[in-house]
């Protein structure tokens, strides 16, 4: 441990690891951006990173050292013994851009990571702080990559055509000269696959679910939060138990019952089921919020002659608008994303929701860019809604417990 805490060991070690992280990141990013061959060389990355780390520790974190690191990186990559290799047929420009990006990223980020790492032995504080800075940098890259890559692939695949996809699965560059032709799969989805109807169905079902859920959950949550009655504690616990019941267990008898009563393939059937899956969550989130409201305001209303129901309507609800917004958003999200029940209960293409419609696109006859275009159509509205109201959402999710 003491050996590791020498500046001459810590600096090169962190430099080497950091260059590996960056060269893998830049290679992957460049491959995805251009479709051409970029390959990180782990051994050379370790070597050059260690050299750079030693250099920074030895000569201090000055502008000159940073520029030197940048120049060396670009030079060794160009020569072909650098931390990142390019294929034989990779364009010169792409190769140069890759080298420049990697060199610049490494040169600018290495110095801050090795802040306080001096030659000689390091205190525990400085050593751990340097490691934490390295881990932080790695964390940002890692999380951004794992979150963005699937969505990037989803959007880019939807803009391609089958032969392009098979030819080079890595090439996600977009040919803007095609103009409106780029969006052909979207156009076909809406004209040939009825996605307009599915979008409308999903929207109507989700909004109806939100209203029904609120109509049931608000009185229930108020009663659990404010009114005293025997069994109150037991009740608020059993709400939690309900969302422990797996949907597939309920889906089977519901499927049987709906098959026998002819409620399959009907909006009424779906709208009967969806709210029940969301009411417990909504009730739990709302009662948490209601408990947090000052009861004095309501008591003042009662003293002034309002009935309980009038108190709920005129005092409690206006005060809890933010909570209602986040609960609505959350319920909307559950209903919009619901897949299992829609899949089991809907067979008639004119009644499909978006998720069911996408499931129907998953066949070998339909090209995959349609599948991805459908996924984008389902994802974009909920993302837009969520990003716009993110504040409500985060608060609502953490205020009460949440179903996953």
């Amino acid at each position, binding site marked *: 441990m003491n050996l590791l805490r020498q500046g001459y060991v810590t600096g090169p070690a962190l430099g080497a690891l950091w260059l590996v992280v960056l060269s893998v990141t830049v290679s992957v990013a460049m491959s995805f951006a251009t479709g051409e061959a970029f390959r990180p060389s782990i051994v050379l990355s370790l070597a050059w990173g260690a050299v750079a780390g030693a250099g920074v520790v030895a000569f201090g974190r000055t502008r000159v050292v940073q520029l030197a690191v940048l120049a060396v990186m670009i030079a060794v990559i160009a020569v072909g013994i650098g931390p990142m290799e390019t294929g034989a047929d990779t364009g010169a420009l792409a190769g140069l851009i890759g080298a420049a990006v990697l060199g610049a990223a490494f040169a600018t980020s290495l110095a801050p990571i090795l802040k306080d790492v001096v030659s000689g032995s390091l205190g525990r504080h400085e050593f751990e702080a340097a490691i934490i800075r390295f881990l932080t940098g790695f964390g940002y890259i890692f999380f951004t990559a794992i979150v963005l890559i699937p969505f990037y692939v989803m959007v880019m695949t939807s803009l391609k055509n089958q032969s392009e996809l098979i030819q080079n699965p*890595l090439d996600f560059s977009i040919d803007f000269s095609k103009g409106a032709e780029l969006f052909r799969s979207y156009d076909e989805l809406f004209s040939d696959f009825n996605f307009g109807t599915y979008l409308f169905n999903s929207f109507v079902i989700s909004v109806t679910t939100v209203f029904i859920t609120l109509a049931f959950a608000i009185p229930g949550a108020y009663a659990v939060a404010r*009114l005293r*009655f025997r069994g109150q504690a037991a009740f608020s616990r059993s709400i939690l138990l309900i969302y422990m019941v797996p949907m597939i267990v309920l889906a089977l008898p519901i499927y049987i019952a709906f098959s026998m009563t002819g409620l399959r393939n009907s909006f009424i059937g779906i709208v009967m089921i969806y709210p029940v899956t969301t*009411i417990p969550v909504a009730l739990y989130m709302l009662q948490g919020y209601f408990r947090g409201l000052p009861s004095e305001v309501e008591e003042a209303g009662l003293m002034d002659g309002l009935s309980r129901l009038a108190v709920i309507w005129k005092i409690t609800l206006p005060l809890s608008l933010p909570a209602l917004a986040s609960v609505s958003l959350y319920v909307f999200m559950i209903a919009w994303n619901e897949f299992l029940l829609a899949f089991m209960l809907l067979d008639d293409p004119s009644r499909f929701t978006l998720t069911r419609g996408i499931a129907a696109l998953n066949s070998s006859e339909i090209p995959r860019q349609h599948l991805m275009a459908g*996924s984008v159509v389902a994802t974009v509205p909920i993302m837009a809604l969520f990003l716009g109201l993110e504040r409500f959402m985060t608060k609502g999710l953490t205020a009460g417990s949440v179903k*996953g």
Partner: protein
Amino acid sequence: MADATPPSGTGPLGKREARLAWGLLLPTIAAVALVVVLPLLAIFWISVKPVALADLRAPEPVLREDLRGGPEVVGDEAQIRYRLRNSSQDRPISAVSFSDVVPEGLVVQSVDARCVLEGRDLSCDLGDWEPGHRETLSIPVVVEQAYFDNDVAPQDSAASITGQSSNVLTNSDFTLDNFARVFSGDEFFEVVWVTLFYTVFGTIGALVVGLFAALLLNKSFRGQGILRGLYLFPYVAPVIAVAFAWLILFDPFSGSVNALLVQMGVSPQAINFFGERPLALIMVTVFEIWRYFPLSFLFILARMQSIDSDMFEAADMDGASPFQQFWYLSVPQLLGILSVLFLLRFIWTFNKFDDIFLLTGGNAGTRTLTVNVYEQAFAVSNIGAGAAVAVVIFGCLLTFSIFFLKYISQEEGL
């Protein structure tokens, strides 16, 4: 003066409050009872019934009616033909009877022994039908002018046919075959093992990754809000969209990840990520971690931001290093939320169906208990066996819940 005693028991006001409370809760209770409790009871019932997917449609008598002989002028002879059959090939129908109205202008010459004609109303009592029973009933008629005037063919007035068939869901046949089927063989133990692997590693993975993400974002800097929103994407997006995106990303023939791995020299040939044991199980677990780390991240971050920063300053003054601060200060503060999250996520991961169903369909050694319900009920078409698996799941869940309730009562915040 009489002693003033405080009132005991529930007063009239209290009673009124309780009545109002139950009134407000009634709609919820009714809805939940209808859609949750009733199906749960039904699951137990179905699990001891020999019922297959085809049995959901009760056998019914089917009747088709037409006029044979092509009468063209008054006085022609023709036959009203009734073609009858049992829609089921394996179950009988008892007490079949039908009634019909013979159109005006067709004079019935004779009727079958089982039928009675009153005026123009024909009714027949056909007795019991064997499975797959078929017969044709012809009634000879003579055509009159009125038939051509009215232009009403026999099939225009629909005949009504009734019969009684025993429904396997409501009769008194019981069997334990479903459970025997579910528990028999090595298959069940594989399913349990897969479920445990998926649940335990999915839960712990999502917690650890979420904790790491929360540590990253537990400081304020520009763009923190954007990153927080971004890191929630996997959880907010529809599962079907992200599952298909993963499938395309990891496709063995034209997936980008395989192309990348081959190009970088990590793997000599493409890897079938979702089609090989045991890789498929690891991949669905990784997907589960990817999709649900945002949830734990959100809860852990909320808890972290409520920790008092004074404590860390004091520890800093005393010379505690960053890792020591994390281990001795943050972790104990986070243990409560971590344990609650662990229990919740454990149960929800155990219940998860969609993810695996969409990614592998339960193939390549990824069949968990919940996927097994679907497999048995719909792929093998044995609803009873599916219900039996569901009962097993419910039993496991009941155990978890007891454990959970014991814990949740001690933990605040959730």
